[in-house]
């Protein structure tokens, strides 16, 4: 596996399989949800192979449970490694969270206490994952709606410590930084500035919504275009971390591919302008 992933990508969704292979698709690469392709055969794997012949791919999982209390699922890791052998991804990632326990999968990206104990636990498991896959792994900062009392680290310290102790890299979700900054009351720019400069290997961009029941909390719904505040934060991330491969995720209200490609063109423009500004400074 090599880490040469450049430019601007999209999350691959079944609605876009055919259009992704049409000549006018300008995405540089696609990211797949790993679990969607852990099947024995059929349509999804057929399209995956064809799209993989044309585009570089990244793999992004949702069920590794890297922060969970059950032992790492060896069967899941075997299936992940087998999929990686088929896909030959440029990057492999999952979320810095926990997803269940006692054999139950809650299918949510649940928040970890931000403590030294959690850092040690997650880092040890990440080292196991990297050994099993034979490559550096990326973990994504997740959106969260609660924090535990007794946290001893802020979010930037927590992310930095996991990276330092595990040797993994960060998949920086800029929308999640924005959502958390609003939900937990911190400065998102300060968080980006506090992360180790070389640690970010991939960037996610997405839309969010506001809690319909009036709490004022933001919810990471991936059902809308990227908002202006997140674009501004992305520009800052580009100035801070340089030319990192970036992509847009959409999981609900999925528009035609052409619409997402227009949004991706906007990401290119913002990144180019941010880089010009960095060079001029």
């Amino acid at each position: 596996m090599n880490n040469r992933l450049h430019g601007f990508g999209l999350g691959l969704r079944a609605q876009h399989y055919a259009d992704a292979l049409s000549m006018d698709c300008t995405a540089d690469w696609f990211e797949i949800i790993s679990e969607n392709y852990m099947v024995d055969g059929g349509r999804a794997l057929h399209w995956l192979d064809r799209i993989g012949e044309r585009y570089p791919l990244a793999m992004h999982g949702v069920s590794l449970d890297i922060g969970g209390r059950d032992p790492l699922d060896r069967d899941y890791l075997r299936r992940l490694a087998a999929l990686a052998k088929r896909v030959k991804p440029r990057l492999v990632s999952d979320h810095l969270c926990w997803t269940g326990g006692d054999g139950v999968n809650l299918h949510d990206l649940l928040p970890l206490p931000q403590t030294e104990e959690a850092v040690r636990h997650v880092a040890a498991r990440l080292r196991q994952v990297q050994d099993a896959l034979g490559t550096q792994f990326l973990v994504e900062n997740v959106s969260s709606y609660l924090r535990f009392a007794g946290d001893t680290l802020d979010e930037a310290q927590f992310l930095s410590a996991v990276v330092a102790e595990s040797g993994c890299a960060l998949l920086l979700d800029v929308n999640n930084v924005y959502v958390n900054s609003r939900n937990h009351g911190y400065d998102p720019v300060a968080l980006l500035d506090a992360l180790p400069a070389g640690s970010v290997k991939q960037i996610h961009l997405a839309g969010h919504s506001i809690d319909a029941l009036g709490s004022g909390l933001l919810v990471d719904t991936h059902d809308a275009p990227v908002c202006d505040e997140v674009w501004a934060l992305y520009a800052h991330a580009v100035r801070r971390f340089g030319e990192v491969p970036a992509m847009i995720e959409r999981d609900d209200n999925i528009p035609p591919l052409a619409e997402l490609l227009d949004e991706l063109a906007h990401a290119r423009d913002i990144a180019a302008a941010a880089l010009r500004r960095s060079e001029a400074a």
Partner: protein
Amino acid sequence: MNAPASALFERQAALQRWLMHGEAGVAAQLPAERRDARLRIYADAYRLRLADVLAHDFPVLHAWIGEDAFGELAEGYLRAHPSRHPSVRHFGRHFAAWLREREGTAPGWAELAEFEWLQGEVFDAVDAPVASIEDAARLPPAAWPSLRLQLQPAMRLRALPAAIPALVEAHNAGRPLPPFAAGEIADWLLWRRGFEVFWRRLEPGEAGLLALARDGAGFAELCERLGDDLPETDAALRAAGLLKRWLADGLVAALQTDPPA
């Protein structure tokens, strides 16, 4: 095997008890600011996400009984069978059996759920090649006594009320669902050809023969079985007719002979 108790694991277990059982003890471990809303967002997301998965995997049952009734079923099923698999694709695997055991399940619900689940199983079962009628025509006469049919892995046989597939066909065509009349049970075959899932009602006796072939019986054995009920000439004609139909449907992955033809 869990590691020794820790603050990390205790907090996870407490939040999990909130999500799965509504036990609010986790609140003591959270700052007070908008605490109820924060917990509610996670609880709602857990229930709604898995209810959406069931609605996606059982779209006809969902349409048949409506949002509210389906939502109640989803909540009950989630309590009885929380997901134990990394992929949500497997969450609904016990839904039909749970419906069958459940008090208050109306006639047809469990059977429709079973039929929809089988469609999903066939949809992403292992790929296999498709043998053709021409492949069979090319077999030398000496190969026929040892012929075995390797059937598609993406194939399921089930005895279900004859009215169930009509519900699915009406839904897929955008027509109003016909009234359901339990009653006649028929043998149904579901299979995938290319990436499309098909089904058809089997002729009397055909399911038993397909099951025999699937389990490794030779073609000669299938002919013998037909001969139990038919004169020899009729049995041979019937066997040839069934083989032709199965090949035309794409049910046969390979024609195996000894020695290989």
